[in-house]
């Protein structure tokens, strides 16, 4: 839920409570005031009638409300002396409305020429239910009016106030460490300024550590190249002296093999680092059918030597928009993987389908662990000199372009690259 709506919901609930309480208090205060004013009116009427009686005593014989809205009845002195004025809420049948309507009645006693009379004066009352309804309507209008005002304020004013915040959020959402660029908008609101500053500082330190880490891997790999080159060259020079016996030669060869392996490992790490740093920017439409044929051709001798047969099944022409070098590395690594983990008499089959490449091979009869298969340095075989980085490189290339790589085992090992459609 958006912050704007969140506060609005709260305000709406709170307003409902406040307005209800206020309505109740207002209603009773209003009613009280109305009664007060009506009672004053009745009192006044009583005074006027008594005054009239002194002039015209025939009024005393009025025994019906219908004329003048009062009724006079003679009562005993004893009863009259114990009588106090009474204000009563009651109902009375109204001719015009043809129904019982609420009235306020004043029952009082007075003395006229030594005789006691009880008089009832009434006046028509506000209809309470009508008042409540009117009040309710008025309050509902007020409530919705307030809500509408708040919503309008939120949408126009608050949205504008929160603009720097949303702008920052939007940028953070698309933020990538590889392409750091955050533009904060200047703001007069202190909280946003603090937020901007804090985010900027946090990002700066992250970018700095990311860059230093990125450069560390690159630099470490670079720095390793020269000593490796020197060592390999020195050992080759030693081998070239020619007066080594077989045992010495064997030892030398082993040292060289391991240095070569280190070199390959170093190159692969450097390649991974470059792929992840998105240093392969140029892309083109790469025809995988042609590429697979070319690379399979390069592997021809190795297939023959390993007694592994190769089969290419082209169900579709696959063209992928990507870096051509990375395309070649992707296919090379998949083919190499299928070849290295194979067995004599086995086979490698490449299938090109609509938007997908599938490489399958014979080999170990056990399925591999798909969750760790593409992790770095996860060796699941005994192929001792493999770097353990080949499939990580495949995964890194796939991630770079949004392809999905999956593994399946159905008596053969299936590696499938699904290109983004």
């Amino acid at each position, binding site marked *: 839920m958006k912050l704007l709506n969140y506060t609005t919901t709260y305000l709406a609930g709170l307003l409902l409570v406040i307005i209800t309480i206020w309505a109740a208090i207002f209603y009773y205060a209003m009613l009280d005031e109305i009664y007060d004013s009506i009672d004053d009116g009745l009192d006044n009427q009583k005074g006027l009638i008594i005054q009239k009686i002194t002039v015209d005593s025939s009024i005393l014989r009025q025994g019906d409300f219908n004329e003048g809205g009062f009724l006079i009845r003679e009562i005993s002195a004893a009863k009259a002396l114990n009588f106090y004025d009474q204000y009563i809420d009651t109902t009375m049948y109204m001719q015009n409305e043809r129904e019982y309507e609420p009235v306020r009645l004043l029952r009082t006693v007075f003395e006229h020429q030594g005789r006691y009379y009880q008089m009832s004066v009434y006046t028509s009352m506000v209809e309470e239910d009508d008042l409540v309804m009117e009040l309710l309507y008025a309050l509902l209008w007020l409530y919705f009016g307030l809500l509408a005002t708040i919503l309008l304020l939120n949408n126009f004013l608050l949205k504008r106030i929160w603009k720097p915040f949303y702008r920052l959020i939007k940028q953070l959402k698309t933020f990538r460490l590889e392409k750091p660029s955050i533009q904060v908008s200047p703001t007069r609101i202190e909280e946003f300024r603090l937020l901007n500053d804090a985010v900027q500082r946090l990002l700066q330190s992250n970018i700095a550590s990311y860059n230093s880490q990125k450069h560390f891997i690159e630099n470490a790999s670079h720095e390793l190249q020269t000593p490796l080159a020197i060592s390999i060259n020195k050992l080759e020079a030693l081998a070239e002296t*020619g007066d080594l016996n077989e045992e010495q*030669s064997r030892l030398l060869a082993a040292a060289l093999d391991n240095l070569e392996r280190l070199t390959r490992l170093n190159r692969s790490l450097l390649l991974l680092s470059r792929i992840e740093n998105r240093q392969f920017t140029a892309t083109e439409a790469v025809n995988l059918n042609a590429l697979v044929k070319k690379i399979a051709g*390069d592997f021809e001798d190795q297939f*023959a030597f390993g007694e592994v047969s190769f089969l290419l099944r082209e169900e579709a022409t696959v063209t992928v928009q990507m870096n051509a070098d990375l395309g070649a590395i992707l296919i090379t690594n998949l083919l190499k993987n299928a070849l290295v983990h194979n067995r004599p008499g086995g086979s490698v089959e490449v299938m090109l389908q609509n938007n997908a490449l599938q490489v399958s091979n014979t080999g170990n009869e056990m399925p591999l662990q798909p969750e760790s298969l593409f992790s770095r340095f996860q060796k699941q075989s005994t192929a001792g000199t493999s770097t353990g980085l080949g499939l990580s490189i495949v995964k890194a290339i796939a991630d770079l372009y949004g392809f999905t790589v999956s593994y399946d085992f159905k008596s053969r090992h299936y590696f499938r690259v699904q290109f983004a459609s």
Partner: protein
Amino acid sequence: MKILVIEDEPEMRANIVRSLETEAYVVESAEDYYAAREKLGIYQYDCILLDIGLPGGSGLALLKELKKEGLQSGVIIVSAKGSIDDKVEGLNLGADDYLPKPFHMAELHARVKSLIRRKTLGGSTVVEVGNLRIDTERRTVRVGEAELSLNRKEYDVLLYLVTNKGRLVAKTALAEHVWGDTIDEANSFDFIYSQIKNLRKKLKDHEAEVEINAVYGVGYKLVET
């Protein structure tokens, strides 16, 4: 043939210089940008081996300057920064070749020889060893008068070994040169053996005066008999 080696790492420089000297090249060296600048201001070289990461200035900047001044020498960039950008930039600046570190000396020799063959106008494109004649332009091999029929890979292996005649060629160097970068699993290098076997048989059948010797586990060496 005069070669200038511009390389700041002393051991690396010594390796390259010593290895090139065995081929009877006149080899001089410079350890940084300024020394290189000075030498190139005074002398002419047929070939320059240029390291990119130099103290005092980048090798690429040096190359740019030299090309502006009309440098005629062949240039091979030797770099530990095996990135494609460097390679593209170097070649665009007019370098003739790019060799990423670490490399095998055999590969360096092959590149230098190939460069000199290309650079020497009117020079011979034929390489001769004993009674073996390789025409690098037409990619044909003759033993005496008879033509030796070789497939593409056998030809590449032979030319590489001949280029590095008398020198030990590590099997990795050979594999990478002939089969390309796709070959980088050491356990699969044994397949080279079958190629060598075929080649040896063909050479022997035609009574070529060369021989391919195996140096146990390390590689091969072509010698004249």
